[in-house]
């Protein structure tokens, strides 16, 4: 009987270790539905998203920005490439890129990628602004629904509050 209990504890321990939460929950999270993208053959759509983060009291925090996209209607077959770029004073730098083939039978996520160090340069606290550029390119005709999610994490674990706003330009 003790062997059975021991085996059960071992199994529970393995499951608990794998399902462990690796960080505190975000102190703030916001989602922005993208404006959508109707792309003809060889179409390119660029959208710049501004993310404003404020926290109180100020201190160390980290941010994550995630982009997910679905193909909602496809004519024939389309190859879709999505990229996420960080915008700064000198232009923009690509931090993630993925390509997927969409066909009339395609549904569900085409892409999901994130920038876990989105606010790495904003550790001084107060208000921080970071712009991201979401770019879709396709070789076919496809409509895409996408959304951007931003989250903030309190690195000091002191329970500070934070707010996030996102807007497109």
């Amino acid at each position, binding site marked *: 009987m*003790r*062997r059975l*209990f*021991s*085996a059960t*504890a*071992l199994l*529970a*321990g*393995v499951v*608990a*270790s*794998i*399902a*462990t*939460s*690796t*960080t*505190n*929950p975000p*102190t703030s999270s916001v989602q922005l539905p993208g404006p959508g993208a109707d792309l003809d053959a060889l179409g390119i759509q660029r959208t710049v998203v501004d993310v404003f983060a404020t926290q109180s009291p100020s201190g160390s925090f*980290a941010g*994550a920005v995630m982009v997910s996209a679905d193909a909602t209607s496809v004519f024939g077959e389309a190859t879709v490439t999505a990229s996420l770029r960080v915008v700064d004073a000198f232009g923009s730098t690509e931090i993630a890129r993925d390509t997927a083939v969409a066909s009339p039978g395609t549904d569900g*996520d085409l892409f*999901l990628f*994130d920038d*876990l160090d989105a606010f790495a340069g904003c550790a001084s606290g107060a208000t921080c602004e970071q712009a991201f550029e979401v770019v879709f390119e396709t070789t076919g005709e496809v409509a895409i629904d996408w959304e951007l999610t931003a*989250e903030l*994490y*309190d*690195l*000091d*674990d*002191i*329970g500070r509050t934070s707010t996030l706003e996102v807007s497109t330009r």
Partner: protein
Amino acid sequence: MSDEPVPGRALLHPVALSCLGLMVLNDQVLKWACPGVLTGKLSDVAGLVFFPLLLVSVWEWSAWLAGRPPHAPRAVVWGAVVFTASGFAAIQVSEVAAWAWTWGLGLLQAPIRGTWQPVVHTMDPTDLIALPAAGVALILTRE
């Protein structure tokens, strides 16, 4: 009744079972209900107590299944403690270790999520304050 030692018996110690329950409760409920210093460190301490015992238990079950006595030598216990402590410290201070951890744990969680993506992990050197908890395994496994 057989006198043969039970493999993984350290996991049946009340301290080990309490830490397992605390980890699950804190990760799934308390962190979300009251985020702060206490819930931020609680799982670290509980995990550092529990994980070396889990490794020792895996070793003992493997030995038992192989027909050998299910009794971990002290070297195995020390190895589990050092491995746990050094791995925990590394993911708090090393970018490379943190990167490997986020993708490695993401791989283990992939069957549940249905996709392989890194887990969210924020490096926090202040978490190293929990490191002595790894040594509890040395006490609990003393015969």
